[in-house]
């Protein structure tokens, strides 16, 4: 520490003795800071979940346990159809984006054509493009080609931003696999297609499934792209939350938010547990984050 020279007298022998040795111990300050960090990160979420069970309208005082806000959520026909729409969008997005993204990953890792570099950039740019830019341009595309805004346009938008996530996750796995096993299959007389189907794909499954579930969660939670590409009705849940919040705070939103949280948790939990369920030893977080980090 640079200030040590200024105040050596302040460190009395017994204080120096109680202070932990300087090196590879756990610095208390960091630990406290980390606890504080997790507290602040989770406090608002805990609050939303807690007050979703409140028996009164109050968002300040917990007056007893009840399911009334959940009842209101599930009994409202339009919210019900919004939930259905959100799930439908997320499922279609998951299937299509996972298929396209996995193929793209295979192509990027195994092919070195003139177009690979361009395809690689085309894959990476959506990951760093602010959602509002993607949302606005998708809206302009759909209105220019005369496509009515509906669940279909939301799905098209969601698939577009999801492909890259799948590709990054699957590519990390594919790169660590190496071409040796595939070459062995080819030497043993398998065709290229058989090799892909019977050798490569089974090895990729954990990453493909994890990526698919990640995409489901991203699509289910997405607000910005949905906001720009949604039609009149049914609108997906996050868009409904947005309109509701602007008219003021109601406890039903807590119930919707908690319910969405539960669905996301189940999805992400599945994604994290899958490699283990399939009997692989690798770290789930590692599979999901790939080597590429974000």
């Amino acid at each position, binding site marked *: 520490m640079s200030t040590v020279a200024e105040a050596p007298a302040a460190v009395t022998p017994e204080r120096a003795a109680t202070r932990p040795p300087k090196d590879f111990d756990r610095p208390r300050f960091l630990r406290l800071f980390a606890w504080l960090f997790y507290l602040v990160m989770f406090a*608002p979420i805990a609050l939303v979940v807690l007050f979703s069970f409140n028996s009164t309208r109050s968002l300040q005082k917990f007056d007893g346990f009840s399911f009334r806000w959940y009842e209101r959520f599930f009994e409202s026909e339009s919210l019900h159809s919004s939930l259905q729409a959100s799930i439908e969008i997320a499922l279609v997005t998951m299937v299509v984006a996972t298929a396209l993204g996995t193929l793209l990953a295979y192509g990027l890792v195994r092919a070195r054509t003139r177009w690979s570099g361009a395809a690689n950039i085309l894959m990476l740019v959506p990951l760093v493009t602010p959602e*509002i830019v*993607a949302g606005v341009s998708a809206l302009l595309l759909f209105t220019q080609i005369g496509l009515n805004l509906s669940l279909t346009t939301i799905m098209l938008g969601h698939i577009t931003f999801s492909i890259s996530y799948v590709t990054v996750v699957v590519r990390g796995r594919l790169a660590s696999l190496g071409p040796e096993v595939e070459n062995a299959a080819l030497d043993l007389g398998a065709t290229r297609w058989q090799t892909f189907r019977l050798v490569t794909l089974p090895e990729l499954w954990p990453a493909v499934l994890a990526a698919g579930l990640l995409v489901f969660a991203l699509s289910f939670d997405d607000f910005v792209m949905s906001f720009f590409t949604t039609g009149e009705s049914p609108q997906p849940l996050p868009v409904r939350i947005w309109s509701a919040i602007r008219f003021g705070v109601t406890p039903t939103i807590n119930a919707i938010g908690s319910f969405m949280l539960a669905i996301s948790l189940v999805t992400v939990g599945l994604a994290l547990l899958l490699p283990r369920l399939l009997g692989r030893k690798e770290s789930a977080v590692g599979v999901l*984050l790939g080597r590429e980090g974000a």
Partner: protein
Amino acid sequence: MSEQRFASRFLLPGAVWLLLFFLVPLGILLAISFGTTDDLGNSLYGWHPSNYADAFDPLFAPVLLRSVGYAFATVVLCLVIGYPIAYYIARFGGRRKNALIALVVLPFFVNYLVRTYAWVAILGDEGVFNGAANTNIRFLNTPYAVVGGLVYGYLAFMILPIYAALDRMDPALIEAGKDLYGSRWNTFRHVTFPHTFQGVLAGGVLVFLPAVGDFVSAQLLGGPDEYMVGNLIQQQFFAAENWPFGAALTTLMMGFLLIFMVMYLRSAAKASREATA
């Protein structure tokens, strides 16, 4: 069939999709940004660079500056908070490392609107905090609230790359720094930080890009005086019905951010080359 030709066919569906639904729309965005509207508010193509001049009108220029300022403040705060957290998890997380990093990512999967809205409930004039502490502090509708919301929303993007960089780093380097009589601070400054600089850079860009385009935090935690460019764009599309001006603002933002995107993609490409080499 050669491996090259076989594998290159796999590129096709995904690349064509991204071309049609990502790249082409960006082209349409650019085209419409030079357009104008008819009396009914429909967009017409044309050559009207004035849309861009309007963006720097004294009415709108402060909003653009504010967006960059808020986003920059968000990056700095995310770094100040995120680096120690990443450091703690990477160096002292032990067997719980993966669980701790999963806990960092977890809030990210709670809907961003709901998380932001929770802060409204906590910090509102009659919110949980003022109620519990029996105070009358005005948190909302201030720049602090908007930047705070952005930090809360995007902190994970800063922590993950820094964590990845720290995790890759050999702890023996830090030991060596201390063996050579480096103080804690000097070891950090000359050894740890430079080694993780790629991660810091990546985290900075990954936070900056979405923060510039955000409109949720300013809408819910701030007010018209805190509006960012995202709010302005959203207004052009859904309230003012001036799509060409909205497209010009979006293009302007994308153009400004392109520098940071290229910077990030180049360093990511370099990092992945080094990792595979």
